[in-house]
């Protein structure tokens, strides 16, 4: 049949020109559309800049802090006042600098929240897509596991596990937490995958011999990428409260490892909460501002997603 077609009329240069043109009029990716939306929305841009600048600051600054030294008890500076040259934010009952704890604690808490988001979202996305795509028996079993995970008293179980495990660090804690925070994502992704699976392009791919895994991750996933970005951002805001909450209760990061949660736990002492506000309030304010900013970024991302759906090109 090749003889019937004249392909010689398409020259190398033509092909190169076409490729270049195609690059120029490339339909923007989900991330690019969102970026455009952010540039138009000043508060969203401010929130994004605050988050990124703050992240960079705590990760770089904590490199210069000697953590064991900073966590040493120093009776001399017992409840040192804030806003002095030695103690910018004062010191706690053991005379440890709040500012230093805040920086290292932020790094730990943010790092865990990022790790938790990456692991639990990846797992939730894979779970949801597989469950939604294959359906049938696999879906049924996976749904039962999901149901069971939903009725487990999560916080209590995590506390028990943390108490049971003789030794753990930030990484094991992140892994433990990840086991319990994938369900929301998986449910959302499953329902969207279910809807996508019924579309003809999936049937077409099957008919044309594409493997199931390729269909799931190469054909369906690009179609729900915006949803994934939005969901991950919102989960991140939520996950900021997970480790910090546990550390606040005293079951998060081990002793001697500062966290935003352990700083806020200073407020458990009525003496601290009233007289020595600097021991806990900065950490509380930081969490509030961070969560609001991340959540706001997520909301704006969701708005672009909805707008894209309205235009029908999602």
């Amino acid at each position, binding site marked *: 049949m090749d003889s019937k077609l004249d392909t010689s009329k398409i020259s190398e240069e033509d092909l190169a020109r076409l490729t270049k043109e195609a690059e120029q009029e490339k339909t923007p990716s989900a991330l690019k559309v969102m970026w455009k939306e952010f540039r138009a929305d000043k508060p969203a841009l401010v929130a994004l800049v605050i988050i990124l600048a703050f992240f960079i600051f705590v990760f770089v600054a904590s490199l210069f802090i000697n953590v064991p030294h900073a966590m040493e008890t120093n009776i001399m500076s017992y409840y040192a006042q804030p806003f002095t040259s030695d103690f910018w934010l004062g010191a706690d009952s053991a005379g440890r600098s709040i500012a230093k704890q805040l920086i290292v604690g932020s790094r730990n808490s943010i790092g865990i929240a990022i790790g938790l988001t990456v692991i639990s979202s990846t797992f939730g996305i894979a779970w949801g897509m597989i469950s939604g795509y294959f359906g049938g028996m696999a879906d049924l079993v996976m749904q039962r596991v999901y149901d069971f995970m939903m009725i487990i008293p999560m916080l209590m179980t995590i506390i028990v596990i943390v108490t049971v495990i003789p030794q753990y660090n930030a990484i094991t804690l992140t892994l433990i937490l990840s086991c319990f925070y994938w369900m929301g994502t998986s449910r959302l992704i499953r329902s969207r995958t279910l809807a996508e699976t019924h579309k003809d392009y999936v049937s*077409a791919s099957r008919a*044309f011999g594409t493997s199931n895994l390729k269909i799931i991750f190469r054909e369906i996933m690009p179609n729900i990428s915006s949803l994934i970005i939005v969901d991950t951002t919102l989960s991140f805001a939520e996950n900021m409260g997970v480790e910090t909450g546990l550390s606040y209760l005293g079951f998060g990061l081990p002793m001697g490892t500062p966290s935003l949660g352990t700083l806020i736990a200073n407020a458990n002492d009525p003496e601290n909460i009233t007289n020595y506000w600097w021991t806990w309030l900065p950490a509380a304010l930081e969490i509030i501002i961070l969560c609001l900013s991340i959540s706001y970024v997520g909301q704006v991302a969701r708005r672009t997603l909805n707008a894209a759906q309205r235009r029908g090109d999602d």
Partner: protein
Amino acid sequence: MSLIEVKDLKVHYPVRGGFWNRIIDNVKAVDGVSFSIEAGSTFGLVGESGSGKTTTGKSILGLEKMTAGTILYEGQDIKASGTARTEYNRNVQMIFQDSLSSLNPRKRIESIIAEPLRNFEHLDKEQEKLRVIQLLDIVGLGADALYKYPYQFSGGQRQRIGVARAVATNPKLIIADEPVSALDLSVQAQVLNFMKKVQRELGVSYLFISHDLGVVRHMCTNIAIMHRGRLVEIGTRDDIYNHPLHIYTKRLLAAIPETNVDGRAEHRKQRLAIEKEYEEEQAKYYDKDGFALPLQAVSATHAVALPDDLLHELKAKGKA
């Protein structure tokens, strides 16, 4: 030997119910359908929506699980061996009804058309690109379509892209599921002509699934009429259009809109007469559950689901 032979194909869906969610009944979407398609020909499968024609097409392709039946491809049972199956998948492709949803909205035309190529033929990048351009050319689209996205095309253009994708691996059989019913009339003819052109140039066979008898007449050499999961009549174009025997076929044919204004009143009278006949004699043509009777051969090419007495009557008439 026929290119493909479908024997007693059944697709049943279980109906679950009762306390333990056991299978209490079956929906017989396709119930004992047999036909064969010759190489290079177009076989029309006609029926109303819900008659099981799409399910038939999808189960031939392997998108629906067959409950029973065999499919012989070039005389070989496709369930027999794995390698035969791969070869079969490469040689049987599909054109979908909805051109928009059957093309992945996030992919460029190049990767959409190249998808079957990537799975079955291992070409290098340059070869693949040239092949896609060739395919686009067959369906009358230029190379500038290569890097565009599906939504940048009109419905007719998209369906032509669907045709290009279906012929990418040089298949022997293409299942076309209502390929033009979502398109404007003016565009329908264009797409159909490209399909015919592809057939002339590549010698491909079509299983043409449609509810539109006008389009089927234009495209098909052999036709089967399907009703409630079973075939009620099967034959050549001449058999079906000029000598319809089953009451359901007659009714379908009467429903084709008549463009000739002069015979309007007469046409209407005829249509009403057939409708009346259908109402009255329906019971004779279907079994007690409302399914079509088994097919009976009335000539070498023509078989109809007729009750025995009518068949004898017909044969007596033929001899006399």
